[in-house]
């Protein structure tokens, strides 16, 4: 694997995470539990898709094969997407969506903080921009985790179930392979094992505040970074890719 290939994959993965989560969140449009949260979730989706846009632009310029970003976003096959399994999980209910968002936001903030020092100026620029947005998302999701966990009996039960179900996707946030090792060596990417402890303690702090418990089951699910997805992913793709598949090369 050349450095160029590794760096390309690294950037595409970062973009896939935000694209798929952005797509999931946008399913809430018109269905939010209250108007303010309908707007909040779709605003966050917009930020994530904007970040994806910047990351994919960088990826196609690194690859330098004349691809455009719509091809990356909409014309790959299932196995060619390498997002975290966490972000493709169903919305289920508002509490579940918030817990998924919270686990992701804590991770993403740490990634961008570290990427601000990337040896690639373009990536550092994207990180600096996205970090500001991510901090705001994290504040939103953290406060809701606490409000729901420490809320009514039903809200507590629902978010605790979400924590229990989604916990098995959290080890994957710290997955590393050849791609990561390549970019870490050159200072292009970040070594996510450096902030695993910070992620754990931040999550624990908020969950404790929310009177929620971290499940003790240790079994963990992974595969997203290798293109092996959960069953929900194909349905998401078929909806997201519909326009480009039905009307190839269409533009708004």
């Amino acid at each position: 694997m050349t450095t160029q290939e590794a760096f390309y994959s690294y950037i595409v993965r970062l973009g896939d995470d935000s694209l798929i989560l952005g797509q999931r969140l946008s399913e809430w449009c018109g269905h939010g539990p209250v108007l303010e949260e309908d707007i909040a979730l779709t605003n966050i989706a917009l930020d994530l898709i904007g970040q994806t846009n910047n990351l994919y632009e960088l990826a196609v310029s690194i690859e330098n094969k004349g691809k455009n970003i719509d091809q990356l976003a909409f014309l790959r096959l299932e196995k060619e997407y390498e997002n975290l399994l966490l972000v493709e999980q169903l919305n289920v209910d508002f509490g579940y969506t918030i817990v998924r968002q919270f686990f992701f936001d804590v991770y993403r903030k740490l990634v961008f903080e570290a990427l601000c020092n990337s040896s690639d100026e373009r990536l550092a620029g994207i990180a600096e921009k996205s970090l500001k947005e991510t901090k705001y998302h994290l504040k939103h999701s953290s406060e809701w985790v606490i409000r729901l966990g420490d809320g009514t009996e039903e809200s507590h039960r629902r978010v605790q179930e979400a924590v229990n179900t989604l916990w098995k996707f959290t080890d994957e946030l710290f997955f590393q392979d050849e791609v990561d090792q390549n970019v870490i060596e050159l200072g292009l990417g970040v070594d996510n094992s450096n902030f695993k402890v910070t992620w754990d303690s931040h999550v624990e702090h908020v969950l404790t505040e929310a009177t929620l418990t971290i499940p003790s089951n240790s079994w963990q699910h992974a595969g997203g970074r290798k293109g092996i997805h959960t069953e929900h992913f194909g349905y998401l793709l078929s909806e997201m890719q519909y326009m480009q598949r039905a009307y190839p090369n269409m533009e708004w």
Partner: protein
Amino acid sequence: MVTEKYIWEQLEQISDPEIPVLSIVDLGIVRIVSISDDSCIVTITPTYSGCPAMNVIQEDIIKLLSPTVNTKVEMTLSPAWTTDWMSENGRNKLREYGIAPPEHEVDKSVLFAKPTVVPCPKCKSSHTKMISQFGSTACKAHYQCLECLEPFDYFKCLK
């Protein structure tokens, strides 16, 4: 030959499509104007990564300037836009329009920090409350005045 000053003045005519009362210069998204021979490069930066207004703004700049000078628009992400770049003129225009301009805020990562006091743009009362961290566009949050009861947009602080 056109001057930089002339281009900056021209750009004052272009408004943000989502907040028509503000020009793109007031908003601080025009970063650099550079002129060489008979062409001009305008460098702009987005307020938020997913700001849907960027394409329209880019087209507006080209439409306005290209009859006079060969114009190219470039996009930059770094340094990242901050509400500190909004001009005093821009802040006043926002207030008159009914949107509260950005206030200095504590670090966003602080959980349950006391919400920023945002004075009502209609009656000036500081007795207001935040309704939602997110508002009608990516750059706004939603507040309500508890004196005159007017709901209003707050242009949230981004640092």
